[in-house]
């Protein structure tokens, strides 16, 4: 297929697995759930679209280079769904496509639908997601956004078929802001990278400051573009350059670095002019998922994931896992693989998905964003989970993160 690298491995693997389970267990299962023995009858096909990794490698040598971001999360959730499905007479199938950097996401999307997928999980950045939303086929399927944090998709660019399991920039920024206000570190200085994503994140941070009582004392733009993964001795330059760069900033409680693409933020902790903590997109971060998260059974998900993927679960993997699990939960509860029944269920009052975050996660009615607790964490230990106690909300404290119903710009 042009511009895309197609893989059928997952589908083949899945079919073999389901067969083995049925052979081993079907005889043992009497149909308290479902009238007939659990022979996989109803199939539900999910398509996954990822994007080929770019040329740049993570700036820290400790970070692994992830080639299958999101796909591994979707695969694990399909396994989890099938574990229940074997008792329910339901089988979940996953088709994966990785779009090449010069490939066409819309083409990949149409291909998955042509093969029978009614559900699409995307681990794509904004421009590629926009390509998909522009197709006629987007009206007929349910799309879960597991990769784009852009607030625009929750507001003016929202789409009736589009659901979000990855948190928005506003949610991440609000989660961090609430923690900083809890700490009474209310005066912030910003260093903003020069990508479009960084500018959008900086906007979200300014919005969070206004909402929760933060004050931005000063702001600087990091003037450099991305460098190669550092060769040995990179710190010599950094140790001289960063303090000088920061020395004219007014005093602040925390330095917030805004570097979504991860090309300079990691250099800032311990190199600041003033002895201040560093947070934002590096240092103390807000994130949907982190390897250090151990509460509420999270370790079980880490272990299952690592046994399968041989690496840590990323926030994108987690968002893809949530999307596929939401579909599975809908299918289980409605005892149906029908798209309409499942969508009605997951948008209804009865839907509650366990997400290893303490609280059940649910979808917001106004923009179809998953409302979810957000981890606030250092590199090696979780510091807190937002929403913070004391930030009150008439419905649920989780709606104090991101765009609440009265603020939404989503009309479809």
């Amino acid at each position, binding site marked *: 297929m042009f511009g895309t690298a197609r893989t059928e491995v997952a589908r083949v693997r899945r079919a073999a697995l389901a067969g083995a389970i049925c052979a081993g267990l079907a005889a043992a299962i*009497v149909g308290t759930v479902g009238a007939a023995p659990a022979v996989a009858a109803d199939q539900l096909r999910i398509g996954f679209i990822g994007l080929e990794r770019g040329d740049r490698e993570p700036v820290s040598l400790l970070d692994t280079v992830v080639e299958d971001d999101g796909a591994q999360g979707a695969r694990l959730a399909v396994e989890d769904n099938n*574990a*229940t499905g074997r*008792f329910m007479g339901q089988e979940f199938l996953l088709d994966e496509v990785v779009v090449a950097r010069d490939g066409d996401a819309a083409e990949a999307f149409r291909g998955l639908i042509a093969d029978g997928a009614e559900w699409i999980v995307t681990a794509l950045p904004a421009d590629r997601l926009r390509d998909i939303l522009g197709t006629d086929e987007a009206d007929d399927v349910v799309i879960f956004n597991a990769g784009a944090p852009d607030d625009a998709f929750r507001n003016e660019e929202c789409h009736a078929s589009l659901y979000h399991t990855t948190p928005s920039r506003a949610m991440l920024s609000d989660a961090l802001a609430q923690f900083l206000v809890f700490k009474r570190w209310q005066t912030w200085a910003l260093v903003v990278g020069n990508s479009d994503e960084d500018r959008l994140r900086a906007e979200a941070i300014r919005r969070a400051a206004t909402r929760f009582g933060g004050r931005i004392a000063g702001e600087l733009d990091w003037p450099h573009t991305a460098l190669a993964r550092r060769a040995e001795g990179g710190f010599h330059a950094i140790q001289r350059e960063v303090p000088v760069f920061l020395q004219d900033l007014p005093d602040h409680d925390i330095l917030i670095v805004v570097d979504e693409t991860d090309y300079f933020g990691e250099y800032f902790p311990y190199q600041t002019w003033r002895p201040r903590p560093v947070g934002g997109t590096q240092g103390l971060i807000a994130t949907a998922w982190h390897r250090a998260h151990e509460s509420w059974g999270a370790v*079980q998900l880490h272990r299952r994931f690592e046994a399968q993927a041989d690496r840590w679960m990323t926030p994108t993997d987690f968002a893809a896992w949530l999307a596929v699990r939401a579909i599975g939960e809908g299918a*289980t509860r409605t005892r149906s693989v029908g798209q309409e029944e499942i969508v009605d269920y997951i948008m209804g009052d009865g839907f509650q998905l366990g997400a290893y975050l303490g609280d059940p996660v649910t979808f917001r009615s106004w923009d179809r964003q998953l409302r979810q607790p957000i981890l606030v964490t250092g590199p090696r230990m979780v510091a807190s989970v937002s929403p913070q106690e004391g930030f009150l909300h008439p419905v649920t404290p989780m709606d104090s993160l991101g765009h609440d119903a009265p603020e939404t710009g989503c009309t479809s």
Partner: protein
Amino acid sequence: MTGPKTLVAAVTAGLVATTPALAEKIFVSNEQDNTVSVIDGESLEVIDTIEVSRRPRAMALSSDGTMLFVAAGDDDVIDVIDVESHDVTSSLSSGPDPEVIRVDPNRPYIYISNEDDNIVTVLDYEARTRVAEIPVGVEPEGIAVSPDGAWVVNTTETTNMAHFIDTEAMQIEHNVLVDARPRHAEFTHDGSQVWVSSEIGATVSVIDMESFEIVHTITFDVPGVPREAVQAVGVELTSDGRYGFVALGPSNRIAVVDQESYEVLDYILVGQRPWHMALNGDETRLFTTNGVSGDVTMIEVNSLEPVRSIPVGRFPWGVIVVD
């Protein structure tokens, strides 16, 4: 035979004891400390702290009441503690990450939920052999054995089911879908029902053992507490069929439920994040493990009042009363 609890009830009834539970000891597993605290039933003070294997959670008594089994998840073993001497006398290999364990009333079997492997393991603790491995759903958690020993119920947290295992055939016979993230299963003392709590769903499903269907779903609404903070975990049922107690986790409450009408009668404020509970021998006292505050609350069952809080180790998880 249902173990020492019944025995104590019979003895105290015979003596018309006014000071209950004199010789009782309360064992509490401290998940983060790798210890088991021993509380004296009379003074209500910690009299011993036993070093055990890593991450101790559920505990169970051998049928003769002499051995306490402690599931140690991070060492993949079940430690055996002599309840008289408090010595760890041996460790049984349990399969990976044992979480909840229960003992068969008729045979020397321990049923173990292996959280990471999606199986229930059956161990013979006398022969020290593995009797069976039963495949179940994702993240097996709660285990309950029916009073007659015919059924084992296992809950799976991500599959959201209660699996009913026939203990003769050692295989699943029924599956009942319950609310999100089922944790604990507890049989009524007459064996006619099993109560299954759901942590995220914040409900208790009452399942009838004739039809294997949910006959009632108990919901909880604690005034002034956000819905998300109400999570149903531990369940304890009095043998007279009167009360069901449900630990509501982050809401810091124990719900008191009428076993007949399923009506929630009261919410008792205890320490932070109560997880599991145990009644003493004559069922005059209920002990709760409060994970976050690191203590045990003693509730008087007659008055439904919390009367004492007893500091133990870090993250107390399971509790069991031994006479």
